[in-house]
């Protein structure tokens, strides 16, 4: 088995080639985790590297020369996998578990399917403005936004439906799928709509005479 030399907290240590990816991956995961939870992720990682070095030096004293997979596993068990650390980490005061803000079709503010009302609730804007925007954008995108409206009407759940249903799993599956679909759809429609809006505003950009840039 080949041996690699790596630098750990400013020292060179020898590690078996099959153990190295495990250690590297672990440190990478830790770093990603601490970058999310702390401002001084760099310092924390440095401390952890020193700790690993210390552990390895104890092994050296016992006559070992090369770090193996078993050593890496022992270290991970001592310091803890990212999940174990997450479990134990004190949450900053006043922080709540992040909740995904959902878009629903509105049941209180609905003219057709409650899509405009729901979007307005989500983005906290006046539903009248949303409706005018939808009509306006429908006109200048030759109906594309209208299609988006219909698709949203199909995909977006009603709030009461989600809250009252007993079957959490099926709701979660439904949400997952609808959100995935929503993102793809929003990207496509958004892209095309943006092009068309641009074409409407600055026809020269598309070398067109009268802004009659039309994808359909």
């Amino acid at each position: 088995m080949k041996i690699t030399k790596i630098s750990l907290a400013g020292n060179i240590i020898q590690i078996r080639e099959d153990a190295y990816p495990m250690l590297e991956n672990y440190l990478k995961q830790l770093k990603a985790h601490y970058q999310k939870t702390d401002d001084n992720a760099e310092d924390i990682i440095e401390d952890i590297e020193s700790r690993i070095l210390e552990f390895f030096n104890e092994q050296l004293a016992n006559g070992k020369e090369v770090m193996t997979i078993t050593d890496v596993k022992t270290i991970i068990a001592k310091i803890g996998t990212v999940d174990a650390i997450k479990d134990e980490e004190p949450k900053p005061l006043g922080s709540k578990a992040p909740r995904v803000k959902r878009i629903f079709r509105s049941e209180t503010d609905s003219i057709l399917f409650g899509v405009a009302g729901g979007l307005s609730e989500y983005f906290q804007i006046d539903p009248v403005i949303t409706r005018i925007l939808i009509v306006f954008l429908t006109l200048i995108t030759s109906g594309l936004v209208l299609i988006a409206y219909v698709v949203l009407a199909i995909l977006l759940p009603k709030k009461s439906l989600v809250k009252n249903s007993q079957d959490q799993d099926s709701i979660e599956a439904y949400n997952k799928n609808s959100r995935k679909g929503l993102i793809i759809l929003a990207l496509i429609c958004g892209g095309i709509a943006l092009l068309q809006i641009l074409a409407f505003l600055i026809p020269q950009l598309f070398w067109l005479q009268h802004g009659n840039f039309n994808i359909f």
Partner: protein
Amino acid sequence: MLENKLENVVSQMRKGSLEFAILLLIQSKKQMYTSEIITELQKIELIVVEGTLYPLLNRLLKEELLSYSWAESTSGPPRKYYQITNLGTQLIQKLIPAWQSYTNSINSLIPKL
């Protein structure tokens, strides 16, 4: 269900007092390096994995409640020794009565047998 709840409440209690415990521990020993702190905290079952401690120590350093200095060790790399700062001592002095009044409050609610 009960087991989960128990675990959750105990872990919340632990989380709330961990910083205080670290400050007390380092104060009592004058200075400690990381592995010593870990060993002591694990002995009294305040932490399970080491990874929890590093962010806390770094936070306490940043808040100037702790300071550190490097010292050579006979075996291996130099060690980071943590000491309590003046500010840290002041905080401990304020935390002790707060902790006592808090535990008294809870104790007063526990029925005597």
